[in-house]
């Protein structure tokens, strides 16, 4: 007698699980950056078009496959066609790579969260040097938040070759992060289903608080205006109204192919397609669950969260830029006041330029000596420092938070939100690995579910120790940039083609009719059969040509002597690791098909020899 497959308690748990998985750190730290780079408001047009062409159909496809086959990714693709079991294995391998490095982000979030209980915040000021006469040298060259990130948190080495030692503080945070993930997935859907109520809703609460706080900050409007103006050289004003002018500029960005490519890529990776997590989640559904409606809901919520998060990010950004700009101005004013012994308060931000001219004319020699020290403070330059990724989340936000009142509260809220987003995504990743493992009869008869989860978490934790070394962040970047990108495109392409052409679109329609009660309409069919595969193929070709054209791959290393990032080339063994990462997941597909082909041939030959 088989044990019944565990199910979600109600469809809401499933929707929350999908939202929790899809809404992750990328919504907070990648989308605002893209919005800023490609024209602000204008970027929304390609983004929404890609959502309709690519996001919703592919999400619906994965959910339907999982719900119908009621197996993890390996089993589901085996049912579609035995030659495609390699696709399932490739998904598991990619998920494994992702879970290895993704939990390190949760470890960092824990680190910052624990340090948020101090007053004042540890990244608010530089530490003193050894004889207490001034600030630490490295910290003085850069800012206190960057110092806290690069030196206190990562203790980063100057290059990827210098491994350094393992940082015990990061190790304990990583162990804690894995223990938390284990606690959530221990009982399978029973425990995951309850956890996703929290991980899906808490980030929205915090984002709402930050929205209200962010919009009321001084200088937030500067950030919002900046987000909605595209970065093109000023063309002559053809229209009388400024709004119409800015609209024209935004629409001009649409002609840039990079805009469309980045929109497509963002939708693709933001929804987490191809990892097998969505298939795993859907496999725990009742057979008659309306996955079409859920697919539309999840993808819309994911995209609107991105837009919501970017408004919050940009108001915070504007606040930080305005604060730094005003600081810079007051430093210049102080310098001029001191050197020329002017009365206090004679120089203000308003009369600075006219006073500068006056001083140049009255004391030309002294002013010329002073000129290298006088920085040209520019709000545009502060806003232009576009950041994405861990830089945005940990450096930029912590810098903005330290200048707010009651900074401890906002800091705690923010890092709890990051944790919820990260853990939500980790639940999906581990589900993608564990569901095929617990589905396989061999493993589930010998080991209980808890032990399999424990072993997977333990292996991931041990491998994750690599990222806690001094050079760990550079390996993290390798995994982040190359571990999943190309492989996922290939996996999803094969998935779409398999369902439409190998399994057959008509058969799939009939299955959907059985499950949800009506056939998919022409929009879904056209997207699945033509639009999405074509789009994925073009993305794939673009990325391949981009990698080939750039030649050597480079990375950003932190130079402690200068206090900033410098570009370096990867050594050969790092390049080998990158190649291995990409190859190990993509090769699973053809190798899997080949193995099944050989096995069938051998079976046929043995059958025919018997006759």
């Amino acid at each position, binding site marked *: 007698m088989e044990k019944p497959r565990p199910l979600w308690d109600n469809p809401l748990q499933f929707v929350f699980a999908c939202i929790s998985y899809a809404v992750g750190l990328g919504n907070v730290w990648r989308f605002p950056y893209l919005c800023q780079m490609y024209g602000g408001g204008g970027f929304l047009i390609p983004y929404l078009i890609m959502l309709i062409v690519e996001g919703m159909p592919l999400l619906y496809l994965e959910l339907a496959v999982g719900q119908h086959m009621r197996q993890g990714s390996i089993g589901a693709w085996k049912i579609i066609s035995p030659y495609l079991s390699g696709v399932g294995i490739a998904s598991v391998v990619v998920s494994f790579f992702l879970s290895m490095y993704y939990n390190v982000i949760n470890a960092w979030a824990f680190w910052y969260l624990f340090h948020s209980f101090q007053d004042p915040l540890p990244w608010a000021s530089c530490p003193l040097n050894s004889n207490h006469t001034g*600030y630490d040298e490295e910290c003085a060259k850069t800012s206190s938040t960057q110092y806290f990130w690069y030196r206190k948190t990562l203790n980063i080495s100057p290059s990827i070759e210098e491994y350094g030692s393992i940082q015990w503080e990061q190790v304990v945070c990583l162990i804690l992060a894995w223990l938390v993930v284990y606690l959530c997935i221990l009982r399978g859907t029973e425990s995951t289903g309850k956890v996703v109520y929290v991980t899906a809703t808490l980030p929205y609460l915090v984002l709402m608080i930050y929205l209200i706080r962010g919009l009321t900050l001084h200088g937030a409007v500067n950030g919002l205006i900046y987000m909605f103006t595209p970065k093109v050289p000023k063309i002559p004003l053809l229209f009388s109204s400024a709004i119409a002018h800015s609209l024209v500029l935004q629409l001009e960005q649409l002609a840039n192919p990079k805009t469309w490519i980045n929109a497509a890529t963002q939708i693709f990776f933001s929804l987490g397609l191809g990892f097998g997590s969505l298939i795993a989640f859907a496999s725990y559904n009742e057979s008659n669950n309306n996955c079409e409606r859920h697919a539309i809901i999840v993808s819309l919520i994911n995209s609107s969260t991105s837009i919501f998060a970017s408004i919050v990010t940009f108001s915070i950004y504007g606040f930080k830029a305005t604060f730094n700009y005003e600081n810079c101005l007051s430093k210049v004013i102080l310098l001029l006041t001191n050197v020329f012994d002017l009365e*206090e308060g004679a120089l203000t931000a308003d009369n600075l330029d006219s006073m500068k001219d006056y001083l140049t004319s009255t004391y030309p020699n002294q002013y010329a000596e002073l000129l290298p020290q006088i920085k040209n403070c520019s709000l545009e330059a502060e806003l232009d420092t576009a950041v994405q990724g861990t830089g945005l989340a940990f450096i930029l936000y912590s810098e903005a938070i330290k200048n707010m009142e009651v900074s401890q509260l906002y800091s705690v809220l923010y890092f709890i939100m990051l944790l919820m987003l990260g853990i939500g995504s980790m639940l999906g990743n581990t589900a993608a690995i564990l569901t095929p493992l617990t589905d396989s009869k061999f493993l589930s008869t010998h080991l209980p579910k808890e032990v399999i989860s424990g072993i997977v978490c333990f292996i991931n934790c041990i491998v994750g120790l690599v990222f806690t070394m001094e050079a760990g962040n550079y390996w993290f970047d390798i995994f982040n940039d190359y571990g999943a990108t190309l492989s996922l495109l290939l996996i999803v392409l094969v998935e779409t083609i398999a369902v439409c052409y190998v399994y057959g679109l008509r058969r799939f329609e009939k299955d959907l009719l059985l499950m949800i009660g009506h056939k998919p309409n022409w929009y879904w069919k056209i997207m699945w059969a033509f639009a999405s595969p074509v789009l994925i193929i073009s993305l794939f070709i673009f990325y391949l040509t981009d990698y080939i054209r750039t030649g050597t791959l480079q990375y950003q290393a932190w130079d402690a002597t200068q206090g900033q990032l410098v570009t370096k080339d990867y050594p050969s063994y790092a390049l080998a690791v990158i190649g291995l990462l990409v190859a190990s997941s993509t090769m699973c597909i053809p190798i899997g098909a080949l193995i099944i082909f050989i096995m069938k041939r051998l079976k046929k030959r043995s059958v025919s020899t018997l006759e």
Partner: protein
Amino acid sequence: MLGVLLLAFSLVTIVHSELCRPDAQNAFKVRLSIKTALGDNAYAWDASEEYLFKAMVAFAMRRYSNKETTQISNVLLCNMTERVSFWFVVTDSARNMTTVPGSEVEAAVRMNRNRINSAFLLTDNTLQFLKISSTLSPPIEPAVPVWLIVFGVVLCLVVVGILLLVVSGIRQRKKNNHESAETGDLEDKCDTPVTTENGIPCDILDLKAGQINGVYAADDERFTPL
């Protein structure tokens, strides 16, 4: 008589201007930012404040050397600007026309910096002695770092949660094994209370959609090859 007085006065001023000049030996520049520090409560810098400053420097010298030789008249101020900034030297009362070495003045000021600051309601940043670096106070470090305490609390909660779930899972499994051993005995004797079809319990099959038979769905070769 008048001529002698005039001569003495001009000598004194010449001496003063020789001893106290910008960048003179053993002279220090002082810069005050009263408006920045006190805002609306800022006081005006006048002769009385200068007198207080001389008194404070003399006090610092007395405290440092533990001799009561420095007088207020030994402290010379010059080059007052609107900023408010000026230069000062401390002359040696024992020897005429010489200034106290800069290192002594520096040490004296450093030792009594707090007293000098509070006399003027200012801080190290707003009452600056250029060339005399101030000792910055390090932040207060508690005995056990705060983050370790919070980490310990969270770790304990998580470990307790895991243990609870694992133990309850083991207990449930033991109960199930017990029950299935009992039902196993029952099955031999009478009909199974749970209806099954092909080894799958009926309550799972009881769906509108029915159950997918993997054999038929997966088989690519619908027709047996000849």
